[in-house]
């Protein structure tokens, strides 16, 4: 499997705090890579570094063989990197449909310049994530679970090559989690590589081809989900050291 995204020795400091420390990994073409770790492990920082809303203090990020480390966020979006936000960021005053249409108008390539066509594409994505009947509502009127779906639809409308999902399952019930897993698998089948950050370990274990574990900004494990989850360092990070 060739890598679509390569992260090499990336570090990000906030004043004295090292949020992400010397992390290297790759995301394969068509792969679903799960990233887990306790609160404050640096997961969201990692997504921000890849999507370009933050710049690394040091290290390199390569997308499809091209170095994107210093590129502005909008240019990365146009190259084909889409992300969702953990703290959902819809355009609150716009309709649900137009929220997604922004992704189609801009996004990968130079986007769709015709508004009517962009709205058609947006409608397709809304149906795909199951928000079709909410199209004309204002985004701020959506409830939590539907906002998560909206985040996905917005990112998908950009027709990305890589999708970075920041906790799209947090706060969802079991049925909703199953639905999202189903949607993410379909997205992968359409040829999009996915990096997914999650707290719900059961769900991410089922979904991911490979798991990456962060703890205090360090990578402590990377490999097959079953092997990683039985790794003693990982268990320690989540549950603490067993007293002998």
């Amino acid at each position, binding site marked *: 499997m060739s890598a679509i995204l390569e992260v090499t020795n990336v570090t990000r400091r906030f004043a004295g705090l090292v949020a992400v420390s010397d992390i290297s990994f790759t995301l394969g073409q068509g792969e679903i890579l799960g990233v887990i770790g306790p609160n404050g492990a640096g997961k969201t920082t990692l997504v921000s570094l890849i*999507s*370009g*809303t933050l710049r690394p203090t040091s290290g390199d990020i390569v997308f499809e063989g091209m170095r994107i480390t210093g590129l*502005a*966020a*909008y240019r*990365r*979006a*146009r190259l084909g990197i*889409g*992300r969702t*936000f953990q703290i959902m*960021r*819809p*355009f*609150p*005053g*716009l309709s649900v449909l*137009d929220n997604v*249409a*922004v*992704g189609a*108008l*801009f*996004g*990968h390539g130079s*986007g769709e*310049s015709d*508004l009517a066509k*962009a709205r058609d594409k947006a409608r397709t994505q809304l149906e795909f994530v199951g928000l079709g009947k909410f199209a004309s509502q204002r985004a701020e009127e959506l409830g939590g679970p539907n906002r998560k779906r909206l985040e996905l639809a*917005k*990112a998908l409308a*950009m027709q990305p090559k890589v999708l970075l999902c920041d906790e799209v399952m947090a706060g969802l019930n079991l049925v909703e989690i199953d639905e999202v897993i189903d949607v993410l698998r379909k997205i992968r089948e359409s040829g999009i590589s996915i990096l997914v950050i999650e707290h719900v370990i059961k769900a991410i274990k089922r979904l991911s081809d490979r798991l990456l574990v962060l703890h205090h900004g360090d990578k402590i494990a990377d490999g097959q989900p079953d092997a990683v989850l039985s790794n003693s360092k990982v268990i320690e990070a989540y549950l603490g050291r067993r007293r002998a």
Partner: protein
Amino acid sequence: MTASRLGVAVAIVAVVAVLATVPLFSSDVIVQFGINALLLAVLAQGWNIIGGYTGYASFGNSVFYGLGSYGVAIAMVQWNLPFAVGMIFGAGLAVAFAFLLGVPVLRLKGHYFAIATLGLAQVMSAIVSNIGIAGQNIGLVLPPLNNDHLFYELSLGLLVIATLTVFWLTRSRFGFGLIAIRENEEGAAVMGVNTTLYKVLAFALSGVFTALAGGIHAYWITFLDPDSAFDISLNVKMIIMAVFGGPGTVLGPVLGAFVLSAVSEILSSKVTNLAGLFFGAVVVAAVVLMPRGVADVMRQFRTAGWRYFVENLRAHRI
């Protein structure tokens, strides 16, 4: 939907046609009031682009106004060029200003942006007071043109173009980018919107209309000095009118400018101080009772009734 849209379009064309014929049968006073109201509507519409659609509350639009005024005055008085060339020169100055100072200033958000732009107007007034070609602090006297009908039609034409431009914004990729920036700038950037470029372009577009209005006003009034050209209170007026009418809507700012101009005219003919007090009261009432402007009131009032105002009050937790 389309039928009602066609109805609105026909109604607007009819209103514009009627407005265009006003000078034919009205007194000079009415025509002069009309020129003022139309130019204020252009200013409110210009502010609407950067403040209403892009979400950046600019106090620097009076700089554009001043640059447009001085562009016309300098071209006509110092260089003996025609009025049209002066208008282009003034608009060019506004665009140059938007690009030079927009790039650093538009990095600031919220109050910081407002304060920085407020400072720009003061600085520009001081600079122009020391430029010889601009008549320093004495100002410039333009060649008089006694043709109020012409100024009226020019102002109306400019307002129509400004409003059509804003209408185009609501259905174009560019306009969607601006709205996305207003709603959530970081979210817009990760979706591929070149936020810096779009903000500067919006600032420049806002500046062009504001400068053209300033140019028409300068030629009409025939006198210009730094204090009146870079007057902050004019900037406050355009914001009040846009916010009162409905920022981020196509017709709201025009409506706001017309209504407030009329009320202020009536008040100031009775007691001079009342007009100033009135604008203060309008700001408070508009922000508290109808934060989305008259345009939104007209849309929602039919279904929500008086509850509309109560709900806005509650939203402010007063």
